[in-house]
């Protein structure tokens, strides 16, 4: 498998007051393979989300380089990066971040309709299929204020999938959900990953991380350790075992 994303010696500094700055990411190196399901764990303030946003082009790194599908992206201009996010990347947020004045289906279709040559009928069909797949087809034409947290996060996932991205980034996508909703969301993401889409999550929850293939541990702006659990399939794997093994590792690493 080839790498879809490679980060080399990336640093992120943000100004803190007039003379100080905060060094959030310190010479981080990371490689993500195509089709991988990866999660980043670590204590609050360790730089997990910052890492996700910086390698996904949402934020600009201070130094270092990021290659996406073999080409350097950190020096690209805003327009090129926007185009890349639109075509190749999907994002899922803890706060879901849907557009307020759009209905559920319009929120999903929005990224697809941005391209000038979008076939509106095809986009509509695809969106409805995704809704069906995630079990919220009845919500399609509702206002986003009419859905629960779990339902809306599924809308978020559908939106991330609408342009068939190569990779999906999730910043604590289950952070605000109960255990049942969390399980449902993780099962959808696992299916997405099964279909070949790379997924990278930031999470606090060991149960969530236990369902991912590789877990990275961050501390004080550095990637300090990683654990490979292999692909999880509900049929063949015992989730309890994976969780225990992960917990043990985390305790070992002082988390």
């Amino acid at each position: 498998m080839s790498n879809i994303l490679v980060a080399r010696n990336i640093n992120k500094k943000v100004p803190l007051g007039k003379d100080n700055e905060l060094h959030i990411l310190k010479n981080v190196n990371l490689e993500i393979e195509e089709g991988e399901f990866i999660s980043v764990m670590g204590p609050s303030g360790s730089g997990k989300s910052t890492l996700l946003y910086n390698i996904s082009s949402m934020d600009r790194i201070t130094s270092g380089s990021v290659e996406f599908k073999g080409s350097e992206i950190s020096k690209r201009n805003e327009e090129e990066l926007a185009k890349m996010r639109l075509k190749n990347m999907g994002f899922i947020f803890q706060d879901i971040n849907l557009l307020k004045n759009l209905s559920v289906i319009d929120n999903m279709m929005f990224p697809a309709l941005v391209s000038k040559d979008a076939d509106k009928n095809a986009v509509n069909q695809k969106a409805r299929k995704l809704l069906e797949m995630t079990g919220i087809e009845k919500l399609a034409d509702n206002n986003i204020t009419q859905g629960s947290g779990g339902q809306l996060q599924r809308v978020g996932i559908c939106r991330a999938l609408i342009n068939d991205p190569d990779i999906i980034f999730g910043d604590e996508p289950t952070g605000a959900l109960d255990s049942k909703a969390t399980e449902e969301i993780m099962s959808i993401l696992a299916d997405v990953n099964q279909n070949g889409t790379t997924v990278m999550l930031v999470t606090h929850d060991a149960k969530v991380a236990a369902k991912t293939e590789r877990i990275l541990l961050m501390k004080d702006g550095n990637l300090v350790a990683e654990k490979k659990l292999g692909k999880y399939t509900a049929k063949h794997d015992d989730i309890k075992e994976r969780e225990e093994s992960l917990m043990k590792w985390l305790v070992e690493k002082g988390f």
Partner: protein
Amino acid sequence: MFLKMIKNDFSRKKIITLTVFVFITMAVLLGASATNIVANLVQSMSELQKHAVPADITQMHAGEYNQGEIDQFTEKHREHIEMQETMFLLTLDGRNIHFGNNQTMAGTVQDISFVVQNKKFDFILDLNNEKLDVKEGFVAVPIYFMEQYDLNVGDTIRVKSGEYEKLFVISDYARDFEMNSSLTSSKRFVINQKDYNEMLATEAGELEYLIEFKLHENGDAQAVQTAYIEAGLPANGPTVGGKIFLLFNAMSDAAVGMVIILISILLIIIASLCIRLTFLATMEEDLREIGVMKAIGLSRKDIKNVYLNKYRIMSVAAGIIGYLFSFVLVNLFNGNMRLYLSSDLSGNLKYLLSLLAPLFVYFMIVMYTRKILKRIDKISAVEALRSDILKHEKSRKYSFPLLKNKFLPVHIYMGFRDVGKRSKLYMLLFLIYVVCTFIIILPLNMYNTMNSPEFSTYMGIGKSDMRIDLRRTDTITEDFKKLQEELINDSEIEKYAAYITSSYKVKNAEGSWDYMNIETGDFSVFPLHYLEGRAPVGEGEIALSYANASKDGLNKKVGKEVIVEVGGTEKSLTVSGIYQDITNGGKTAKAHPSLGINEEAILWYIVSLDVAGGADIREKMGYYQNTYDSAQVNDIEEYTKQTLGNIIAVIIAVLITALFLKMLLSKDMSQIAIIKSLGLTSQNVKHQYMAGTLLVLVFGIIFGVLASNYLGEFLVSMAMSTMGAAKIELVSIAWQTWLLCPIALMLVVGYTVSVCCKVTETDDLSVVLRS
């Protein structure tokens, strides 16, 4: 604690607060300046009146004159008349007066006369409001001419007429209560009795008379005027009541005051809209705060006070600043008043009267804020904290789905649908744009109207190339005949029509007799636009001016009868039409020549003519020495006013757009970050907001133009109806109204949006997303 909260609120919303503050301050500043001007005007007018003792009735006359008859009349009407004095005027043409470097006053629209100071009343004053006492060899020049020709005390003027020639040194400005204003068409130069006698002896000018009456406090001016004419006393010219001078004197300063008051009211409206906008835009954020305050047990009154106090503090501060600075600003407007009315404007009335402005603005702002805050009453703590619920309740049918958009790029469509989705918010912007367009278009239309050939229609004159006026000379009748003969033989004159205006007795609404100036002639040659009916073309027909036909005049409609006395017999005439006329006090009439002429009461002759193709109108005008006294005298003044209006409108449009976008963008920042995270560029975001704003602007312009074309026309007509033109049709030049103004506004607003949207260009999107 509350003070701290207010302080925090100020620092959190610096730009918004500052903008609202600036608008409130400007409103106070202008309001206080306007009331200040009015106060000064009232005080200086009464001061000037006290010193000048103007006449209550002034009869102008040229020709035969016998003081004995006047004295007899005065004695007979002692119950009304307190004093009588006749001023002898030596009228000269402007070209007889030389000054500076071989310049003359030729071409002035004013009648120039040389007089000696009166003994009893109607005094001409110096700049200190003292009675002028001009020494031999000196002259006091009317302020109008001092200004017009940039003359100074100590300069000289040379009067040359026939054999007469004399050099006068200007010793004073002549402040003349009766003839100060540029609206009065005569101006009086004051000289010494000896110089006057010399001038008279050499027949340097035409002799005219101002037969003036000062009445007792309860004297009836109308009765004296009627008795005077009935007595057949000299009246070969117009009669003027005392009040008209008051009006003329106050007119230009009162107009300035009115315009400033209007702008001030406009600014109060804009400030109120800004406050409403602030509330609407920050309500979501504030609602949480209100919720917290309610949850920790603050009373409704306390919470309201937090918000109310903010605007109270702002209004008080703005009030003080505006009030104090108004005394500086007012000096810019007072120059005219200082010169024409009173050099000393130190009266106390202005301090009190202009205090009204800050008080008014304060109450308006506080009342308005209270009204907006009413909604706080209706919200419970939980609702306020969970603003989601509020939205839930309000959720309506989903409108403007994305798939409905067939042609536009999705971000442009998003911009348009945002206007529909948040129509309440955009409505304020729309109103501002309407007002701005109105401010630009209305003066433009007025300017175009005044400069259009159709404007003569409001002056009771049919459209013609040229107009020759013959007035008040002994040889007037001969001149008129000569002129007509010459016109018949002049091959360069295509057509002409001669009109004679004389005074007739007309039965008024109460059944008694009034005097009215009626013009007779062929009114079909140069047709006039009639408000109702048509020109008097047949025997026994008369057309009345709007003011004459109105309730204040004869109260006659088309088809009604008017009784006119001609040569001792009463004639019944039918009203054939009503036309607009702002000349001669608005009260004129036109009749078919068959009415006959009141030979003894001929006032003036007018000849209108069209020059044949190829002939030079200017040359003809020069030849016939005519005075076509058009409204274009005011050109430059009108033009500057209009440019000023444009600049104000553009500044308001820019400021409000900037303020609106600043609020909208800070409110939408998280949504913008989401859109950008999905793959849209800052450029797309900019275009989205530009599309929404420009859509609102387009609607604003359309409504603004319609408002200025219709409402503006109505307002102008209302204002002009007191002057005799009830239905002004504003001339709007399509390319200016529909092309130039919209493009200019769109460029300015578009640029403002583009600058404001720079805030969306952030390197790190996650900062907003995660906050």
